[in-house]
């Protein structure tokens, strides 16, 4: 089984978000970056579980600059076999998906796995676009994945229940919570990652279809209004006229 796991680099969940250049660019100063948790905890770890049981190899792919090598090394430390970085610099979904699809087409993967979304831009687009560009089926938001011979079965959480989906042949799946348990890299893995291959591939020419015009933060939290317990009328009035909840 040949699996391609797509990972992206995102700000750590505790990052204080701010913007520069007239709110058109995310301010990366002092930001710690991590592997997108959906990619790492669910896609990568499930891929490992599958290949550990059934044999096979896992390749990590990332589209981004050399700074991203650190997150690729982490994925290798967790257990992937080798890795590819496509040396492009854009977060635009179509650009990223095109680069991955272009590469994946020629490599004969059985499964291409992504996280259900990244925790920064929350696009949830790349997986679907890769599938479309490769001309293969796409299953989104899967919370289980089992492979038996040439057939893969996935469970998707849908409103009020589950849907079980079956696919044969190459497919793309986006993974969410439930698929696996996060793994912590151990020392053996970290040492092995030093010598695992990281191939740098030049990006293909792809038009940027969208561009970000401006980022806007939600309004700052207003101060709490304290109303004395014997002023119920005032409380009701504010809930009605200001909070507009009654």
């Amino acid at each position: 089984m040949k699996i391609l796991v797509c990972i992206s680099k995102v700000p750590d969940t505790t990052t204080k978000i701010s913007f520069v250049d007239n709110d058109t660019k995310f301010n990366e100063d002092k930001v710690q970056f991590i592997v997108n948790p959906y990619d790492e905890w669910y896609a990568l770890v499930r891929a490992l579980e599958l290949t550990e049981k059934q044999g096979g190899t896992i390749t990590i792919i990332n589209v981004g600059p050399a700074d991203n090598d650190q997150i690729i090394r982490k994925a290798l430390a967790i257990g992937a076999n080798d890795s590819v970085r496509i040396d492009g610099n854009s977060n635009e979904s179509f650009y990223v998906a095109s680069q991955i699809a272009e590469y994946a087409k020629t490599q004969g993967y059985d499964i291409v796995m992504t996280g259900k979304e990244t925790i920064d831009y929350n696009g949830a687009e790349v997986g679907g676009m890769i599938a479309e560009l490769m001309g293969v089926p796409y299953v989104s938001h899967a919370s289980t994945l089992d492979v038996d011979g040439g057939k893969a079965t996935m469970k998707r959480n849908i409103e009020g229940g589950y849907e079980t989906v079956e696919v044969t042949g190459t497919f793309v799946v986006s993974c969410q919570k439930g698929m696996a348990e996060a793994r912590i890299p151990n020392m053996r893995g970290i040492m092995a990652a030093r010598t695992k291959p990281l191939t740098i591939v030049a990006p293909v020419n792809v038009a940027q279809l969208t561009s970000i015009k401006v980022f806007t933060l939600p309004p700052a939290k207003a101060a709490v209004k304290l109303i004395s317990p014997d002023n119920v009328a005032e409380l009701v009035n504010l809930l009605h006229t200001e909070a507009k909840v009654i």
Partner: protein
Amino acid sequence: MARTDLFQAPDYYLVDDLLTDEQKLIRDSVRAWVKKEVSPIIEEACQTATFPKHLIKGLASVGAFGPYIPTEYGGAGLDQISYGLIMQELERGDSGIRSTASVQSSLVMYPIFTYGSEEQKRKYLPKLAAGEMMGCFGLTEPDHGSNPNGMITNFKDAGDHVILNGAKMWISNAPFADIAVVWAKNEHGVIHGLVVERGMEGFTTPETHGKWSLRASATGELVFDNVKVPKENIFPNVKGLKGPLGCLNSARYGISWGVIGAAMDCYDAALRYSKQRIQFGKPIGAFQLQQKKLAEMITEITKAQLLSWRLGVLKNEHRATPQQISMAKRNNVNMALEITRNARQMLGGMGITGEYPIMRHMMNLESVVTYEGTHDIHLLITGMDVTGFNAFE
């Protein structure tokens, strides 16, 4: 009750920029492991004074045992800064857990690697690295602590073996260790190191009970009553006090990093608490007196980080002197102790309970400021280094 570990490491001077990607990956992995495996159980382990033995496998797998020992002997072949960062993260969890790792790495694996024969290295190091075998280090005696040169534990030549007699006290890991690296004098009064194995006749390791500190670490005595130790267990490549002192240099360096972890944990807990606890209508962090404590804590942590980082660079270049190591051990342990005491006060009554890690760290550090050379002894080392006068005797 298992508390939720909300720890977020401070990095006021962007010291992370001085680390390699691999060093950060190692640090973050150990941090994640501590959050998952140590934090949920450590409070109870301390309250009940039990060493959480089940952590040994995990400690081995995150590389806590002999990280700088070459890979051919089962170590990870890492540099000294990686070693320091591992100690920092373990001690962020608990000084007792860090102590177990320090002893195994610097006081057991280091001397076997540095002073041992090829057979000794092959026999012990891979198992020690894997946590399949645990070790302890016997230097301190009931009547000889700061002055180990006066030790009375001794061995006498008896053909293919020696006969070992004496007792060691305050020995970390002793109650469960499979082997002990023991320092003892021969007939000529010269100190040698030898490996004593559990099961050798006349060798016992009674546990020391009633500690108010390092309660999650097991401490005991090593008692040798005419123990026959094969000569091949004696380290061939060292004699004199420089044998144990070499080990202590390595461990003390690791401690200088370790205590930064304990300090960070207390600072982090106090900072969070100061933003949430309201008194007189304000978060207590809005009062100048509490800000003074927090501001001084982060200043001292930052200085300590830079001290240990620089010492790590010097160690990597084999240029760190024992005197420089003394300075870092003394300064950083004292800095951490001061921080735990101030953080404890900031939490008021809550700082007294096991709901928060602060008082546990505070009590642990009373051992850390005493073992591996007391606070006073390290001052005398610096004093002698700068003046040239020996004030020990």
